[in-house]
């Protein structure tokens, strides 16, 4: 049953198959792209002119629509004039994979056209700085407020209805306001990211904190925990791993606000680079830059996930190598420390 091995309902796949599928998830779209780019009879709607022949408005190096080229060729043939020559190509905005791959390197090594324009690495650095500032400021307020809302009904009822309303207001709508208030440089961009992230953050984290098992809090209460101790020592550690996961997802959302934020005021960062390159019609660079955002996002997420397993050892699965001693069979009596039993047992009350 080969099919059932691969497609069994909720059936766990062996590690090698999982890896294979993970690689395929990238390879398949790439293969489709390569197919459209390199197989000449697939799509290729334009004709790249190599010789204008008798058609006066054509020139070598020009791309014309396939139908126009066919019509002109037919017309020239009828009139017995020199035929135009050319080969079929895809439009400029769909560069083939190898060009984009090359652009991943050349985009970094090519100096900017104007002396005051940033290099690509500077643009990327600018973008990452903007994101980190926005996310840090949002988290500085959003995480504590989320925890408060998740822990105390008082704060939840006082804050959440307004936040619920505010999060429906699209962050880009505040662009003009932010520029008016904060100027045209980085502050309004950071503000857009904060507006886009903060309100979601409060609600998501409040929900996560609300999911803490109330039995854990009750257990802590019977052990003598009170007030703030319960928040610090129980509620936060009980939800910290889920908050961490939330933060990873929210960081992804922050990236989606980045592009909007960067067109506010003076265009900057990776958006500036992409726009510039599109204007020069270097679409391979445009794709490379977009790809870099994806790579940075994915890499940072993988790094954070890996960091998480280090930070939260109790979330690690039991490693197969680590053996937990089986102690079900150990009788209790001989294990007792005489000091303990002497201290705890008052002779007069010893059991008969």
């Amino acid at each position, binding site marked *: 049953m080969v099919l059932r091995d691969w497609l069994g309902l909720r059936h766990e796949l062996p590690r090698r198959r999982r890896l294979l599928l993970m690689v395929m998830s990238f390879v398949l779209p790439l293969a489709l792209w390569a197919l459209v780019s390199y197989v000449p009879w697939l799509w290729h709607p334009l004709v790249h002119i190599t010789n204008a022949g008798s058609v006066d408005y054509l020139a070598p190096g020009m791309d014309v629509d396939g139908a126009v080229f066919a019509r002109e060729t037919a017309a020239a043939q009828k009139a017995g004039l020199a035929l135009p020559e050319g080969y079929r190509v895809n439009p400029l905005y769909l560069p083939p994979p190898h060009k984009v791959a090359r652009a991943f390197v050349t985009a970094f090594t090519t100096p900017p056209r104007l002396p005051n324009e940033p290099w690509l690495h500077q643009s990327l650095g600018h973008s990452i700085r903007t994101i980190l500032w926005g996310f840090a400021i949002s988290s500085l307020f959003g995480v504590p407020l989320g925890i408060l809302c998740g822990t105390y009904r008082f704060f939840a009822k006082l804050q959440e209805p307004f936040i619920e309303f505010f999060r429906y207001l699209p962050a880009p709508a505040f662009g003009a306001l932010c520029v008016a208030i904060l100027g045209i440089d980085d502050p309004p961009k950071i503000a857009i990211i904060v507006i886009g992230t903060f309100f979601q953050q409060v609600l998501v984290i409040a929900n996560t904190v609300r999911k803490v098992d109330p039995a854990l809090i*009750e257990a802590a*209460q019977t*052990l003598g925990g009170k007030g703030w101790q319960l928040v610090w020592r129980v509620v936060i550690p009980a939800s910290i791993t889920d908050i961490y996961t939330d933060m990873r997802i929210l960081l992804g959302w922050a990236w989606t606000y980045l592009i909007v934020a960067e067109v506010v005021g003076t265009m900057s960062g990776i958006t500036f680079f992409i726009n510039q390159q599109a204007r020069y019609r270097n679409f391979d660079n445009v794709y490379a830059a977009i790809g870099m955002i994806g790579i940075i996002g994915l890499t940072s997420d993988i790094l954070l996930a890996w960091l998480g397993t280090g930070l*939260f050892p*109790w979330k690690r699965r039991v490693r197969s190598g680590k053996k*937990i001693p089986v102690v*079900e069979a150990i009788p209790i009596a001989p294990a007792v420390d005489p000091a303990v039993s002497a201290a705890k047992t008052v002779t007069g*009350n010893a*059991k008969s």
Partner: protein
Amino acid sequence: MSYTPLKLPDYHEQSPDVADRFRRIRERPVVLKVSDLRKTFGTEEGLQVAFENVSLDIHRREFLCIIGPSGCGKSTLIRIVAGLDHASGGEILVDGHPVSGPGQDRGMVFQGYTLFPWRTVKENVMFGLEMGGKDVDHADSEARQWLEMVGLGKVENSYPHELSGGMKQRVAIARALANEPRILLMDEPFGALDALTRCKMQSYLLQIWKKVNVTILFITHDLDEACYLADRIVVMGANPGRIVEVIENPVPRPRTVAQLLSPEFLTLKHRLDELIHGPVDAEEEKLPVIKLTEAGDEVE
């Protein structure tokens, strides 16, 4: 009926040893006094009584079981004693002081394990000590001793998810005892365990109770468990929740598994069964007769 029922003694009969034990227990001071406790809660149909007229005296070092059908309010009762819930009337005194909320004088072991997953086994046991303001070194060595006592010294640095259910519950017991509570409240603590583990845990609990100066209030719906563990058994009834009878357990101590077939044990279990399940109406329990078997294939 084609079998001869066993001739069992009256469950009130106590051997001189057992009678003497109960006399000694009664002479000890009362640790937990519950008087006239009452709990109601509002529903759509108006005020519903969870239980009422519940009065109990638990003496020092006594092991008291509360048993009853579901809905008799036994869990609500123990939660109120723990301070996790509020009574609608009546009073609870621990060593003469009224209870107004959770406190370290009452330790609690829940049915769910409720260990803190982010803390190692030892750190779990240290929790109450830290709350009590003990410094970490002190708490550390004390926690280690308590873990030794429940036989889990070897896993002190494991995380709860690495332990079996029985081990987790032993950690929970050690954690509750580390605060040296006056009374240990146990709310169906072995209810989630499989039968074999439960049996072991009951024997562990008796051994621990012997060594530690603590009084135990134990909730269960398992007749064997109550007969095996308790000094006195409080039987509760439902609708509304109330105390039906308080029975002094005639099974002598120290208890062993062999006693599960002793006349005292069986007569006590029989009485509890009567009180909790009542007379069984054989007609009512019959399912409608629909035959799906072949002729000659029947079972009796």
